[in-house]
């Protein structure tokens, strides 16, 4: 009898021990968020980009996003997660959890299973290189793109992720980047800018028109991004908490205001409100609120959305019009500039209990100006690191294979020449 009781007690103890710290509510929300963020890339971003290119290149863009999802997942499991989130190096982690060793079904990360945290962060590692596709769309060789993605994840994304979120240098400085203004949007934006410069312009740029071939796909993809972004930002609370609720609210506000602002600007300046414009403004609003979603309140989100619409609109005109850079689908002016804008603005609109803030803690004790300096240092490090590493990676890839398809292939379209498929067989 006593023996039986002891066994039961031990049994109960071991159950409660393994369940200690696990929060089912948090876990349920993080499982949901993970699915939402993957949905942003496939099909959201893939459709958004496919609609923006010419019909002869639609398959190539879908294919690139899909392949990136696969490559990033493999890298993440083999060494990516470990280098980003294990170890306490300033720039990069260690390989103690390579192949996810030591992470079992009972391992916890905070209040959720570590398996869920691994998956959630994996979807961020997927979307970031997929965003860069917009810069070299319609001209990069598929094989070069695969190699580039693999190296870019390793040399740019993983260090950036570790520096900001994995306890590295920027985390120690106190840089605030709630859901990836630096880790996701600045890295993809600067990566895009350097890729556009190294690969060069598309044939015919800027003289001949290269309009989006299917604006319905653009809107469909953009709408999926909007919904998926709730997982991206509110999921970054890593809890089903008050922070998650506020993050979702401010994310939505900024998206709506960014979209409306871009549309209004276009209406005033060009005479017509366009659907590609309103969708682009939405992405700008979302990218800009991303780093700030953990600290700003609703009024702050209105201001961030407004600034995102205005600043990203003019940045888009400037990159193509003034600087003559063929960042084909405007990744840098929307994501890079939006990310930096959010990183800077959160110093002022995210003060605890103060002007436009949500009441969450985080801003440096010294106040907005002290935080601003920290934020600017963060931008500097990530910008430079990404620019140099991306340039080196492209030169390395260029030693192995051509970065661009042949001129003939570019004329013909990458769908047929790279994949022997067409997006539309209408007969």
């Amino acid at each position: 009898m006593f023996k039986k009781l002891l066994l039961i007690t031990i049994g109960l103890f071991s159950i409660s021990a393994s369940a200690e710290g696990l929060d089912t509510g948090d876990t349920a929300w993080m499982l949901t968020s993970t699915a939402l963020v993957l949905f942003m890339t496939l099909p959201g971003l893939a459709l958004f980009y496919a609609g923006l290119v010419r019909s002869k290149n639609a398959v190539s863009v879908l294919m690139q996003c899909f392949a990136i999802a696969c490559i990033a997942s493999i890298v993440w499991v083999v060494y990516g997660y470990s280098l980003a989130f294990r170890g306490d190096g300033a720039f990069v982690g260690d390989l103690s959890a390579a192949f996810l060793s030591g992470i079992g079904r009972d391992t916890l990360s905070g209040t959720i299973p570590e398996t869920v945290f691994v998956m959630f962060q994996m979807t961020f590692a997927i979307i970031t290189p997929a965003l860069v596709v917009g810069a070299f769309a319609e001209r990069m060789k598929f094989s070069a793109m695969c190699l580039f993605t693999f190296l870019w994840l390793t040399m740019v994304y993983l260090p950036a992720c570790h520096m900001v979120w994995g306890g590295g240098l920027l985390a120690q400085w106190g840089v605030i980047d709630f859901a990836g203004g630096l880790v996701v949007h600045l890295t993809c934006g600067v990566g895009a800018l350097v890729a556009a410069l190294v690969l060069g312009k598309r044939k015919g740029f800027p003289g001949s028109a290269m309009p989006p071939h299917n604006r319905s796909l653009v809107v469909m993809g953009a709408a999926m991004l909007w919904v998926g972004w709730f997982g991206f930002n509110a999921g970054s609370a890593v809890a089903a908490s008050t922070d998650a609720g506020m993050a979702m609210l401010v994310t939505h506000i900024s998206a709506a205001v960014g979209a409306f602002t871009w549309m209004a600007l276009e209406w005033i300046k060009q005479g017509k409100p366009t659907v590609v414009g309103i969708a682009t403004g939405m992405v700008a609003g979302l990218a800009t609120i991303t780093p700030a979603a953990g600290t700003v309140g609703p009024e702050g989100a209105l201001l961030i959305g407004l600034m995102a619409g205005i600043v990203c609109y003019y940045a888009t005109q400037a990159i193509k019009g003034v600087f003559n850079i063929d960042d084909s689908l405007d990744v840098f002016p929307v994501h890079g500039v939006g990310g930096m804008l959010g990183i800077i603005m959160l110093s002022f609109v995210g003060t605890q209990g103060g002007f436009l803030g949500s009441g969450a803690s985080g801003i440096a004790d010294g106040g907005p100006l002290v935080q601003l300096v920290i934020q600017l240092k963060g931008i500097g490090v990530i910008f430079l690191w990404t620019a140099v590493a991306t340039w080196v990676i492209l030169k390395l890839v260029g030693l192995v294979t051509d970065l661009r398809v042949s001129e003939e292939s570019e004329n013909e379209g990458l769908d047929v020449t790279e994949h022997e498929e067409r997006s539309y067989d209408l007969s």
Partner: protein
Amino acid sequence: MKLITAIIKPYKLDEVREALSEVGVTGLTITDVKGFGRQKGHTELYRGSEYVVDFLPKTKIEIAVSDENSEAVIEAISKVSNTGKIGDGKVFVSNLEQVMRIRTGELNEDAL
């Protein structure tokens, strides 16, 4: 026999088809085409920059008719397609040497 080729505004197609049925046309072929004339192109917007679309979509209609019907057909097309604005299109008329109905082997007027 005449081959009448008309380039019209796409949205006028249904009206033209009805008008042609009324004057006894029993068959025609249409193609979606692009081109420009005095209307030239128009501008479209992309993320705040304007670009010119040089070629506008039009519908091409081809009809083979007997000599005596050709006037009525041309009149039917031009009457219905005319909006008085630039870009209404054109009608081309050319002589047609031979027509054959593939199923029966009938030739010329019998094949129309």
